[in-house]
């Protein structure tokens, strides 16, 4: 039981001060809401404190020493991000506030120039609202259509339907989650991209749930756009990443206008800045971008293949354990190799919010609700699910505590 295969989890836990806190007075925190946001290691917290304590200043402009230090640290993160996902250049890495803003940047900039009346944007039923709403807004404005690839009862995408969709020469974009934040399904992303490219259709990959949990290589994957969020991978909130292939980015119009994204401003004429700064109007989130650099260092030190291995291990254990609890329905693929460390379920007629309240009594933090995926909830014919999601610091002992709490809920509701 105490045997952790891929990672030295107990050593890792020492780096996360928050894991020592108590809930409800005396219950040790069991944090199983990592798909919402992960906890931060002390090195990330220290990097932010260090910036504000020792070299706080704006980036890219002033020539004083602190500004140079801040710019260097800020741009160092860009290099780390590019390397982490194997982008061919730092010019392709744009900092945003979050993954949602990154998708909106694409829909407002690329979308407004490339999507026209009666065009189709293909997404799926597993999308987070962040990968639905921007396209609906664009479609309404342009008179375009959003098409949904169906997900089957086992949590897999209907690839036959997908191949039929993209036969239409009206399809101008495929935008798709690499991994479902509810079902955990990891979609066959390379196959999806290959098929789309054979029709000349670009593909945006929402990597918010995948980049934090597995090795990612955007050149091998050959996606045209990728978005993800720092706070779901040990980093601070307020930092999102947009990767765009150079040849597409070169042709994109700016999204947010203002300082830092320009070279020269005349009364009736503007020359925009070089890539990637052209897309980063205004003072960026300097401290948190620097903090994110430390998060990437931390993950690199562990190794993303090890992260993935650990999550397969703990998810398999959790699925096996929860199947023994009477009244439980588990959603998504049953094969842990086809899914990430996300486990959505319901138990009898206990509403997920009631379950989350009971879990909290035991110090267990889980997510309950529609997970910003109401299209998927409708498809599953449920109003909500409970969700546990794992990361590098979670142990099988914590899964046991969660299962005990689940049984307690069952007793309370007399099931």
């Amino acid at each position, binding site marked *: 039981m105490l045997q952790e295969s891929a990672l030295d989890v107990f050593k890792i836990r020492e780096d996360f001060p928050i894991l020592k806190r108590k809930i*409800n007075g005396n219950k040790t925190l069991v944090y199983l809401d990592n798909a919402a946001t992960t906890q931060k290691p002390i090195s990330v917290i220290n990097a932010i404190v260090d910036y504000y304590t020792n070299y706080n200043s704006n980036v890219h402009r002033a020539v004083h020493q602190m500004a140079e230090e801040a710019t260097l640290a800020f741009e160092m993160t860009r290099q780390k991000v590019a390397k982490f996902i194997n982008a061919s250049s730092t010019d392709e890495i744009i900092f945003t506030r979050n993954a949602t803003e990154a998708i909106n940047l694409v829909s407002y900039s690329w979308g407004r120039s490339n999507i026209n009346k009666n065009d189709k944007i293909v997404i799926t039923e597993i999308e987070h609202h962040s990968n639905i709403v921007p396209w609906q807004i664009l479609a309404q404005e342009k008179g375009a259509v959003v098409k949904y690839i169906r997900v089957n009862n086992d949590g897999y995408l209907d690839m036959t339907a997908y191949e039929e969709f993209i036969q239409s020469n009206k399809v101008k974009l495929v935008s798709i989650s690499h991994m479902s934040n509810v079902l955990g399904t990891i979609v066959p992303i390379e196959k999806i991209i290959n098929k789309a490219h054979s029709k000349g259709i670009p593909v945006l990959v929402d990597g918010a749930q995948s980049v934090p949990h597995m090795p990612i290589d955007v050149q091998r994957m050959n996606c045209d756009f990728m978005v993800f969020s720092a706070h779901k991978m040990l980093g601070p909130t307020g930092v999102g990443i947009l990767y765009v292939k150079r040849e597409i980015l070169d042709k994109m119009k700016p999204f947010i206008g203002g300082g830092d994204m320009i070279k020269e401003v005349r009364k009736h004429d503007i020359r925009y800045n070089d890539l990637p700064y052209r897309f980063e109007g205004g003072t960026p989130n300097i401290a948190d971008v620097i903090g994110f650099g430390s998060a990437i260092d931390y993950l690199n030190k562990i190794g993303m293949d090890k992260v993935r291995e650990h999550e397969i291990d703990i998810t398999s254990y959790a699925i096996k354990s929860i199947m023994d609890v009477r009244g439980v329905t588990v959603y998504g693929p049953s094969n842990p190799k086809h899914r990430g460390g996300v486990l959505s379920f319901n138990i009898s*007629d*206990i*509403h*997920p*919010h*009631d379950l989350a*309240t*009971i879990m909290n*009594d035991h110090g267990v933090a889980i997510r*309950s*609700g*529609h997970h910003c995926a*109401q299209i998927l*909830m409708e498809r599953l014919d449920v*109003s*909500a699910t409970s969700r546990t999601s794992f990361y590098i610091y979670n142990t099988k002992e914590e899964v046991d505590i969660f299962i005990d709490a689940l049984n307690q*809920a069952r007793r*309370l*509701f*007399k099931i």
Partner: protein
Amino acid sequence: MSDDIYREIILDHYRNPRNKGKLPQADVSTHDSNPLCGDEIDIHLKVEQGKIKDIKFEGRGCAISQASASMLTEMVLDKPLTAVKDLAKDDILENIGLMNLGPARIKCALLSLKVLKMGMINYYIDKDPDSAKKIQDESKLY
């Protein structure tokens, strides 16, 4: 703690809700949901001579939201419609016996009151527009 929340009476109203269903002759029907958790409540009102002659609710969501709605319908049936404007948070929490709900769950308990108040205001806007503004102003926040 949960032992105090999920008492027999809450589970009873959750599993055997009172006054649940449609009300074909309703004077007013109102819907709202809680974006946080997706709880949904519809309340249908039949008003006669200023009294709530009949009330039915429909909805789905957690035990607290649904039990609270069920208990609220029992509380206001046959009462004057204007009495709804005086109902406040504590009346509801007392009614369901859960005075110590945390901020996240209080919204579940109060959703049905919110819908009922909206229904009352809509009723006056429709039937008695002159006094609707006054009723709305006097209506206590929940």
